């Protein structure tokens, strides 16, 4: 039987998802349900003096109106930060209380203050307009760079500083810098992004008054984790009385990791009003209240020798957490960012210092890449600038500083198990016709256009992650993953996973893995996820961990199935276990070629006897009936995908328009389970990264109003913004998991922003401009360039 792992199997889920047969939270309706509408703060920062619900309560169709008073009285807990980060001075990070409904203070536009439940959605919305809130409006802290100089927005949190974190050795860095021929410096802003999942957040809650069980249907990337948090910290219900179902979910990109206010409020309220509740976010609510991504202000320096060797690196960053610290909010700008900021290079001394600040803006949390795009942007801008300033070819300077031996002990935290950065960059150069660029540049110039080329080499730490490591770094949970594999008596297989698919294609790729392990046809396997009542437990999907962690749990559970199968087959075939080989779904006695299929063995496991024969169980002594196995996998290390991307852009200096002419990506994801799915992941990641580099920006005005709160103003990239992507792969197997796989979901979004910006800046003759490189910014840079060139002439 040919191996399914490695083949371009078309996605099983697409029939459902592309023909409108997906079942999303909004598709779920419970008899007698009420509709929720939230009253949200119109102010970035205000004291809440009084909330008057009397008019709303009398409005047509209203079932209940609840406020922060009631939720506090019922002792429902707030939203939490999932990682505890320590400052350089050893002190614990400062975290403000974040009640689901704000009672005393509103801290960002869109923060929920009250909620109305009514018989219809229109009635709920109309009544929400009748809730009168008396605010004392205060001057908000909006700007990332100014936060530490501004008035404290949370009681007891001086300078709005959550922590002042250091990784690395300042003294060693200063010594390295003293030896340098040249110091390369950059000042960067990593623009704030709104994740914009296609499906807005939603929840439907059903409370059973008799069993006292709450069922929460929600848009989550990690239903088990949501249940744990809601139970342990929210106090909504004990875990055994709380079922969390995340059915088909239309994209997350990190924004659906968190347990949100609305899920806690609706779960609590459903129990209180004894009615089911339905809530679906409007697109504007998504813009205002989904966790945002990025938002760093960075100053970084690279110490180099004249011949292009890197000696030292320093990174001073202010990271905006928004109004509150959420699940991955505090770790994204620290352990997911700092260690990767030295990139794919051997740099003897380095440090990353990050100050995380609170502002009166939406909370910032993980967004595709989470910390690693910011890290890669920092180092790859520095490296490109170093090449330019030293007059060394951009690819040569990279090759010169790549490690060539693996495992590679990276400067700050990670030991990278495998990789081959040189081959990756060489391949990318060939595929991109790097050497032919100057001719293309001249051709563009003859048409009055500016052409630039940019390179970025990246690695990232994903497949998060070893529990022992992450817990030592402050994570509140272990990040293992689990799976249960059930062989049915009649031969089909259900694979339960704690990972969650919201676009990644697990129905297909996980089935491929199990099919290979068990030797059964792909069609007989169903992958089940997204329901805390189905399967064991799980930490969910983020940080490119589903395959490298969750997939391995599936492999291991399958191996246990085969091991038990072998014991049973031995009894059935009346030989010793060690005389049996398992291959292509069959247990074969090597000497006699007598065999039992895994289906026959499964059947026997469930029906160990026969009415007509003398009692003779196929099960060995002490073996339990049934064929169901569970595995929990905790990896020994992160996985470290890496690669090199090359982009070419053409700029019209009159209009400032940037056109991406060519994009080449060569990635090393270790062993690839399904090239079709992987290519889709890379395409999506690159598109998101190009969005960050050229189009997307989240802008608050000085009062904290989000002025890019709809698609009229927030620029989502579209298909016509992209060229055909040219993808290639190299392969070094990961050594930390038996499949040799590495995560692939975030790589595109990590590598592409610096690739594009390096190309834009190259076209602009080295002039620095910030992301997104919008038409007006580029037009201004072109004007300056023209001026400089004419002066030089």
């Amino acid at each position, binding site marked *: 039987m040919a191996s399914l792992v490695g083949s371009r199997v078309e996605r099983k889920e697409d029939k459902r998802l592309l023909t409108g047969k997906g079942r999303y939270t909004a598709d779920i309706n419970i008899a007698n349900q009420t509709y929720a509408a939230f009253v949200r703060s119109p102010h970035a920062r205000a004291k809440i003096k009084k909330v008057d619900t009397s008019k709303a309560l009398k409005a047509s169709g209203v079932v209940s109106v609840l406020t922060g008073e009631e939720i506090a009285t019922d002792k429902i807990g707030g939203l939490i930060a999932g990682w505890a980060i320590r400052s350089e001075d050893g002190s614990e990070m400062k975290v403000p209380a974040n009640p689901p409904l704000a009672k005393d203070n509103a801290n960002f536009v869109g923060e929920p203050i009250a909620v109305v439940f009514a018989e219809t959605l229109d009635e709920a919305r109309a009544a929400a307009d009748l809730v009168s809130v008396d605010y004392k409006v205060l001057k908000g802290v909006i700007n990332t760079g100014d936060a530490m100089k501004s008035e404290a927005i949370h009681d007891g949190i001086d300078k709005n500083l959550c922590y002042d974190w250091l990784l690395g050795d300042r003294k060693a860095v200063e010594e390295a810098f003293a030896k340098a021929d040249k110091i390369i410096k950059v000042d960067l802003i990593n623009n704030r992004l709104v994740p914009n999942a296609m499906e807005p957040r939603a929840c439907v809650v059903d409370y059973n008054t008799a069993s006292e069980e709450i069922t929460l249907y929600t848009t989550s990337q990690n239903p088990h984790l949501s249940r744990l948090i809601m139970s342990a910290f929210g106090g909504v219900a004990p875990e055994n009385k709380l079922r969390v179902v995340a059915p088909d979910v239309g994209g997350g990109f990190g924004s659906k990791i968190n347990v949100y206010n609305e899920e806690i409020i609706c779960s609590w309220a459903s129990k209180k009003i004894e009615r089911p509740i339905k809530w679906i976010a409007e697109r504007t609510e998504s813009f205002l209240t989904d966790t945002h991504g990025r938002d760093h202000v960075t100053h970084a320096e690279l110490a180099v020798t004249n011949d292009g060797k890197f000696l030292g690196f320093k990174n001073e960053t202010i990271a905006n957490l928004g109004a509150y610290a959420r699940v991955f909010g505090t770790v994204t700008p620290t352990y997911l960012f700092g260690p990767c900021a030295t990139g794919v290079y051997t740099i003897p001394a380095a440090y990353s210092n990050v100050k995380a600040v609170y502002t009166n803006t939406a909370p910032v949390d993980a967004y595709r890449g989470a910390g690693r795009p910011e890290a890669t942007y920092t180092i790859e801008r520095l490296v490109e600038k170093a090449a330019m300033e030293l007059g060394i070819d951009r690819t040569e300077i990279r090759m010169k500083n790549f490690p060539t031996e693996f495992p590679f002990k990276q400067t700050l935290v990670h030991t990278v198990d495998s990789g081959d950065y040189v081959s990756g960059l060489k391949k990318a150069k060939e595929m991109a016709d790097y050497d032919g660029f100057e001719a293309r540049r001249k051709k563009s110039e003859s048409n009055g256009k500016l052409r630039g080329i940019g390179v970025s080499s990246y690695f990232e730490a994903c497949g998060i992650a070893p529990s022992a490591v992450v817990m030592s770094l402050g994570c509140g949970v272990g990040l293992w993953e689990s799976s249960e594999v059930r062989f049915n008596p009649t031969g089909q297989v259900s694979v339960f996973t704690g990972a969650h698919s919201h676009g990644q294609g697990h129905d297909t790729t996980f089935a491929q893995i199990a099919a290979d392990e068990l030797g059964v046809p792909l069609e007989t396997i169903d992958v089940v996820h997204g329901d805390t009542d189905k399967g064991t437990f799980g930490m969910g999907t983020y940080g490119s961990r589903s395959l490298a962690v969750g997939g391995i749990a599936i492999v291991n559970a399958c191996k246990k199935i085969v091991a038990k199968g072998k014991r049973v087959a031995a009894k059935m075939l009346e030989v010793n276990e060690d005389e049996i080989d398992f291959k292509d779904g069959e247990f074969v006695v090597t000497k006699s070629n007598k065999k039992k299929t895994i289906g026959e063995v499964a059947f026997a496991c469930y029906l160990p006897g026969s009415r007509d024969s003398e009692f003779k169980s196929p099960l060995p002594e002490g073996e339990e009936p049934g064929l169901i196995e569970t595995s929990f996998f905790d990896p020994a290390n992160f996985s470290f995908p890496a690669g090199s991307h090359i982009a070419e852009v053409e700029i019209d200096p009159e209009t400032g328009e940037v056109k991406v002419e060519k994009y080449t990506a060569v990635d090393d994801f270790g062993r690839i389970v399904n090239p079709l799915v992987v290519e889709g992941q890379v395409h999506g990641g690159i598109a998101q990264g190009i969005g960050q580099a050229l*189009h997307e920006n989240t802008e608050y005005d000085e009062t904290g109003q989000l002025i890019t709160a709809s*698609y009229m103003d927030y620029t989502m990239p579209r298909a016509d913004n992209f060229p055909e992507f040219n993808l290639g792969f190299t392969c070094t197997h990961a050594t930390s998991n038996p499949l040799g796989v590495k995560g692939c979901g975030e790589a595109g979004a990590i590598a592409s922003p610096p690739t594009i910006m390096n190309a834009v800046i190259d076209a602009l003759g080295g002039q620095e401009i910030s992301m997104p490189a919008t038409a*007006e910014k580029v037009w201004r840079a072109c004007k300056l360039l023209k001026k400089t060139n004419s002066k030089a002439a």
Partner: protein
Amino acid sequence: MKTFNYHTPKDVKEASKLASSSSAFLAGGMTSVPSMKLGLATYKDIIDIKHIKKLSGIKVSGKSVTIGATTKHVDVATSKEVKKAIPSLAKLAGGIGDAQVRNRGTVGGSIANNDPSACYPSACMALNAIIHTNNRKIEASKFFKGMFETALKKGELIEAVEFQIPEKSNYQKHPNPASRYAIVGVYLAKHKKEVNVAVTGAKSSVYIDKDLSKKLSSSFSSSAIDGIELDSSEMNSDIHASGEFRASLVLTYAKKAVEAC
């Protein structure tokens, strides 16, 4: 959305009779429906004029192209007659919004709304259009009064727009990267006796740039307007483009339009 009465009059007379101070005519609904959903506009009566046959269709004579008010953008964009008579008009219609918008949005709706960044008003101005209503004929230059303001009176309904066929013409648009409305749109038309450079997106309402029009009337080449500095003081300024950038774009696209003619 608040509830409203929905009417489908069979002819213009009936439509006009239904109109009141709390009513709105509905054609493609590409602006009015989102406004109503967002609660920015509320009406007691919605008068859907899509079913009035007389209001839809394209007629081409030797001198003009007349397009019925409820004719959809897609029909203008793909019309062989329009492509032959005024290719730039078909191009303009084909670049409005996206496929869904073009399949519903109408020329009458676009000009009645007079969004400062809509494309059609510039075509009306450059092509000396005459707006036919149920009461009168209005010259384009007197029709667009200011931001979202037109010469239409309450209950007055656009029936058709008559565009004068020029000798040469071209439309150039710098789209807002998010909404794809015009940050700046320049409609250039060379008629027998004059050249019109109509600009949308740049100011509070569509206008004819008199300076550019005059210079190109005396010499129809991009070098005639090269190096001109346009006054940016009245130009719109927002997160996507400053007035200064818009002023530069007007000139850039005017030149591109001349070169494309």
